């Protein structure tokens, strides 16, 4: 049973009485039924049934339908008289004014028609007041526009009379003016120069002064140049044109905005109580908007329908695919496709299909929500927004979405789709034997890794162990080095700060691949470092670091310390310089020693302020491919322990690289990638969550 409320509500929740007396009676009776004791109920129920049975003959409904009929004929006549009117004023005014005139004419007709019905229905009231608003504003607008258009016409006419003679004279005048200005400028500069010589002003002040004078001169000439009749006239026309177009748009906007305001204040009254429109149109976005009477908005939502039914669904069904078979391809992985079909491409297109479908579903749901909300609000009394209102809010609230769309697009295609593909890949059996076609294998790859089996899984745990050790030791070493160097360099008693700072910057500034490769050369069997180490240790045979796993690892850690300390050094220096001096002075007065000051003030401050970056350093080093791969390709190799693929200094990332790129074990590589990505994400999540940056944005 349809339950009615006695009142209507607008957007900000104000109450309005019903104008529909029939519904009001129904609402009141329903209210009484709810509130009365059981014995009285039957009486009211009967009354209500009676009322509903005689709905058609209810005096209010009778007059309402009479009004509706009247309105229909009025509208028909109106459109005809509008045509007649436009014909009548055709060609007599500029297009803008014609538009305004017609608008004024229409409102002039509507106002008297709707006036008698304002007590009958909110719709009539709204049309009436809308007409009033238009009539109140239209004259001012017309006047404004016609004034400016006249001025524009004058300016354009004046353009024709601008003769060569005047122009020439003005040009000559301008030329002279320029000359005078230049001379003045020169004189000013000369006097400034003299002041410098006498030592009254500094070189810097002179430069600033000179720049100002220059600007001043340029301005003067620029302004003067607009006195040329031609140029001035052009400028005038441009300015007027701007005023006319912008002014017209502005006034129309104001008019529309006032009407929109009226719509917000005037409720709507419908007999329906269930928001069926949303359900009726669920599968066809745009249709529901039509049902709600929002026609232009509907066009845009129809685009969603088009996207869904023309792009997303056909694509995911396999039509218009490059090679794949939509979502089905994701399942079959080209198992029974032609020779040229590649599983990987099937997979990617399948993934793409999934994303398209997700998009489509989200969009369809958004449309559904929109229709539902508008419909539900309408039942409460809130008038649906007209196109002007929708457009305005779209431009205001939609702005951030619109401008971040390119970013979204790039991230979905360059980050999300590949990562999804890698994830899927980790559940397949893509290996050297199955390159072009490969099947789903479920958790097989993960099992291999976890149990340390198979050609690729064998070395996993060793490598993971070394990766973790490497990350912790190398990063911490770099951080400690960088931090202490920064503290020392910034000590107030150390001289030559700039010198040290510049030197310490170098490892960061020289592209690391160059230095790593160079280190690699130096540590090679006949390299300089090998020679030095051999000499230092007084060994008989050359000690080649690269042949010894342990030495290799230690060397790598030191190289990374060498490379990474630079960045931390600069970062800490920045923070150190921003720590207020009085903090230290206070500590000193409290009797803190140098070491205590370092521990209690400097270290926490630096750590706290750079936490996210330090976390970044750890994740960076976990995946620090370059230093490992370029130094010794992950070697030295030890096939009995690591298998043929990995070396004893390989990190997971370089191991994955070898698996996928050199040896084509893509699936197991993908599985390892997933494992470490998950680990890193969890690590980063806790790191970031506890850092200041996120705490801050939490409170926003």
């Amino acid at each position, binding site marked *: 049973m349809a339950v009615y409320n006695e009142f209507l509500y607008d957007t900000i929740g104000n109450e309005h009485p019903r104008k529909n007396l029939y519904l009001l009676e129904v609402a009141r009776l329903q209210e009484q039924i709810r509130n009365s004791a059981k014995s009285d109920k039957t009486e009211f129920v009967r009354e209500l049934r009676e009322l509903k049975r005689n709905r058609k003959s209810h005096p209010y409904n009778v007059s309402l339908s009479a009004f509706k009929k009247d309105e229909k004929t009025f509208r028909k006549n109106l459109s005809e008289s509008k045509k007649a009117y436009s014909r009548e004023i055709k060609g007599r005014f500029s297009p803008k004014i014609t538009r305004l005139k017609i608008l004024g004419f229409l409102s002039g007709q509507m106002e008297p028609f709707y006036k008698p019905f304002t007590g009958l229905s909110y719709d009539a009231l709204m049309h009436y007041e809308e007409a009033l608003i238009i009539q109140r504003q239209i004259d001012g607008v017309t006047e404004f526009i016609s004034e400016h258009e006249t001025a524009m016409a004058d300016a354009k006419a004046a353009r024709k009379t601008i003769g060569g003679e005047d122009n020439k004279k003005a040009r000559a005048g301008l030329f002279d003016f320029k000359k005078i200005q230049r001379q003045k400028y020169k004189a000013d500069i000369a006097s400034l120069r003299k002041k410098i010589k006498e030592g009254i002003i500094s070189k810097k002040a002179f430069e600033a002064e000179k720049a100002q004078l220059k600007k001043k001169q340029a301005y003067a000439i620029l302004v003067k140049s607009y006195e040329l009749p031609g140029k001035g006239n052009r400028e005038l026309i441009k300015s007027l044109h701007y005023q006319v177009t912008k002014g017209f748009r502005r006034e129309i906007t104001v008019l529309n905005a006032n009407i929109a305001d009226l719509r917000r204040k005037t409720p709507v009254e419908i007999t329906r109580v269930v928001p069926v429109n949303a359900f009726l149109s669920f599968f066809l976005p745009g249709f529901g908007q039509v049902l709600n009477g929002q026609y232009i908005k509907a066009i845009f939502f129809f685009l969603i329908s088009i996207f869904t039914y023309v792009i997303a669904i056909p694509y995911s069904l396999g039509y218009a695919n490059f090679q794949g078979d939509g979502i089905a391809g994701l399942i079959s992985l080209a198992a029974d496709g032609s020779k040229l079909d590649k599983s990987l491409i099937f997979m990617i297109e399948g993934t793409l299909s999934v994303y398209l479908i997700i998009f489509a579903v989200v969009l369809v749901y958004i449309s559904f929500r929109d229709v539902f909300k508008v419909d539900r609000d309408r039942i409460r009394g809130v008038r649906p927004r007209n196109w002007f209102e929708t457009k305005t809010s779209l431009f205001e609230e939609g702005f951030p979405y619109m401008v971040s769309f390119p970013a979204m697009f790039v991230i979905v295609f360059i980050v999300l789709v590949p990562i999804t593909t890698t994830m899927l890949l980790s559940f397949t059996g893509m290996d050297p034997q199955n390159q072009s076609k490969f099947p789903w294998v479920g958790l097989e790859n993960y099992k291999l890794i976890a149990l340390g089996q198979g050609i690729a899984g064998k070395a996993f745990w060793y490598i993971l162990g070394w990766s973790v050790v490497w990350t912790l030791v190398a990063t911490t070493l770099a951080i400690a080095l960088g931090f202490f160097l920064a503290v020392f360099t910034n000590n107030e008693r150390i001289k030559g700060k700039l010198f040290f700072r510049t030197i310490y910057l170098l490892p960061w500034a020289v592209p690391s691949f160059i230095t790593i490769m160079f280190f690699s050369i130096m540590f090679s069997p*006949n390299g300089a470092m090998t020679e030095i180490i051999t000499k230092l240790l007084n060994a008989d045979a050359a000690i080649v670091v690269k042949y010894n796993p342990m030495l290799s690892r230690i060397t790598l850690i030191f190289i990374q310390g060498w490379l990474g300390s630079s960045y931390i050094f600069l970062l800490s220096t920045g923070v150190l310089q921003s720590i207020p001096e009085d903090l230290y002075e206070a500590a000193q007065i409290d009797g803190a020693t140098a070491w205590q000051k370092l521990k209690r003030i400097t270290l926490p401050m630096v750590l706290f302020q750079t936490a996210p970056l330090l976390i970044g350093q750890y994740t960076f080093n976990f995946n620090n491919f370059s230093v490992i791969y370029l130094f010794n390709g992950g070697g030295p190799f030890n096939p009995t322990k690591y298998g043929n693929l990995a070396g004893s200094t390989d990190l997971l990332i370089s191991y994955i690289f070898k698996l996928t790129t050199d040896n084509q074990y893509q699936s197991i590589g993908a599985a390892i990638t997933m494992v470490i990505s998950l680990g890193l994400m969890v690590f980063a999540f806790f790191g970031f969550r506890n850092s200041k940056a996120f705490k801050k944005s939490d409170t926003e």
Partner: protein
Amino acid sequence: MKKQKHKNALYLSDRQPLAFAGKIGVLMMYIILASWAAAIIWPLYQMIVSAFNGRQGSYLILNREFEFSWEHFEYLFEETLYLTWVKNTIFIAVTTAIVILLIVSFTGYAYSRYRFKGRRASLMAILLIQTIPTFAGIAAYYAMHTIISNIIPAFSRQMMLVLIYAGGGIASNTFILKGYIDSISTELDDAGRMDGCSSMKVYRLIIMPIARPMLAVIGLWSFIGPFMDYLLPRVLLTSPQTYTLAAGLFTLINDIRNTNQPAFAAGGLLTAVPIVIMFILLQNQLVSGLAKGSVKG
């Protein structure tokens, strides 16, 4: 007499005089700082020396006789594709910087100035996804490139590389720029609006000029990135003609047929010098930009 004078001399420094232990401490610090400086300089010095040492074959011979010569540079320019690699790298770097700047300047502004649904969640999500190594998607990149280049033949591997770099740089740079724009008073926006700007114009005429230093830093970082990266070019680029500097120079020490270590030193030197100069000149901006963005969040 002499002692007397010493006592009477004015102590001019603002700081308290140091005790003996303190003096030792300062001396220790100098020693540490100097030795670290030496540790940095020495390998770089060796590289410079070997780039100019004519007394070498295709392998580096350090600490031996030295004879100044340009021959390794000549080899670099004549026998290798060095100039092509430079060109490729610059192309990739410039395009990456432009793409990142274009995208990020909008997102940074939007994330700083507008409160919209999904703002925080999306930032967090992107940041987390970003910790996954770019390399993770490599298999897909190949295939995607195949697909796209089939549709748009002009789409080269290098462009794919640009897109990957750009995709990787968006989140963190949005964060950095947002932090910077947050520090610009919103009253300026309001003033701009009153003076007749739309949202777009507020950004273009007011915020962007003020944020220019940070945009410059972001641009610079994005530009330097491709110079530093070895992994992705190595994987994605297949022919020496398309290599970037990192991938190209590596062939000089890794490929048995082409090995010429002195030429590598020369090439490395040539590549490093402009970048180092840039870093030294702009170190303040680079560091402050980096710290500011991350700290402010």
